[in-house]
């Protein structure tokens, strides 16, 4: 399970990506995140984030009739939201490269150290 602290910075971008695929609602977003391996991110966890993104103009919301219960709130991506997704993915790619370089470099350094010890011997 991915620790919540690690997820914190990632979730908004990932939720935006899900919304950009097609108009969707809270529970469906939660289930989609679960499907892709993000673990159990409850609808309650996502709800304040959706309100914030709506307030900031990244997504828009519309109430539509639901087969189960009262009207359901559906979210769609805006142009600003699409720009935000591109920026998120760019930042994530940079971070991913930096982390991979760090971990690979540690192994190289370890390998170099062993080579120098063998030479002396």
């Amino acid at each position, binding site marked *: 399970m991915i620790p919540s602290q690690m997820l914190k910075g990632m979730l908004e971008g990932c939720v935006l990506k899900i919304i950009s695929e097609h108009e969707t609602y*809270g529970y469906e977003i939660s289930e989609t995140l679960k499907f892709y391996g993000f673990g159990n991110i409850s*609808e*309650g966890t996502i*709800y304040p984030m959706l309100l914030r993104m709506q*307030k900031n103009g990244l997504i828009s919301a519309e109430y539509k009739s*639901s087969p189960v*219960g009262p009207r*359901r*709130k559906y979210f769609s991506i805006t142009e600003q939201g699409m720009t935000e997704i591109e920026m998120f993915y760019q930042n994530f790619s940079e971070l991913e490269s930096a982390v991979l370089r760090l971990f690979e470099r540690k192994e190289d350094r370890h390998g170099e150290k062993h080579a120098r010890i063998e030479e002396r011997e």
Partner: protein
Amino acid sequence: MEKSTHELRKENNRLDGLIKEENQAVFTDIICYLRGSKLSEHDVEVVRFDLTSMVLEAQERGENIGSLFGKCRDYKEFCDEIIDSLPKKTKFQAACEFFSTFFLACSASLLIGIIFSAGFSGKIIKGKLPAASIKISVGEGIVIILIVVIAYALVKLVMRSAFESETIFFKISTIAVSTVASAVLIFLPLLLKDTLLTLDLFVGIAIVVLMFGAGKTLERFI
């Protein structure tokens, strides 16, 4: 077209009846806490509708309200995140809310004061017509204002402490304050009997109606 606050509240009140008893306590605490926050009445009703929909759909899936919040169920934190995500009520809305509550509470208090005054109920009990004018004593006048202030403070306190568990200290404090307040409200009119003002009965009723109307009008701007 966006629904008005009044229409939303009506719909929410209707949907409340569909929430199962096991989910009511937590749901009520959440809404109570949000009502005591700096969110506008309209935004509180919008969030209330959204949360109601979520709870009702969860019920349809055979889940309870706890499943909506996951393992770390800090409802206060959840509410604080919602409050931070939405705009705060404007100064105009805050002023309308305060004065709406003030006028409605004063109209109710004054009406009760008129009904229970010696010039009104005192006469009716004796089988006579009510007096043309009602005398309000200093004590009664203070009690009318005190009731409004205490009621307002109590409601705000209840809303803000929606998630706080009741400690023994809290319970004892509540009982002590209630006892003192009740004693003051009962004995003050008996001690301060000097007439504060004399109101023509119909003028008094007109003031009650005007304040009620003002309160209801201001409610539309909240």
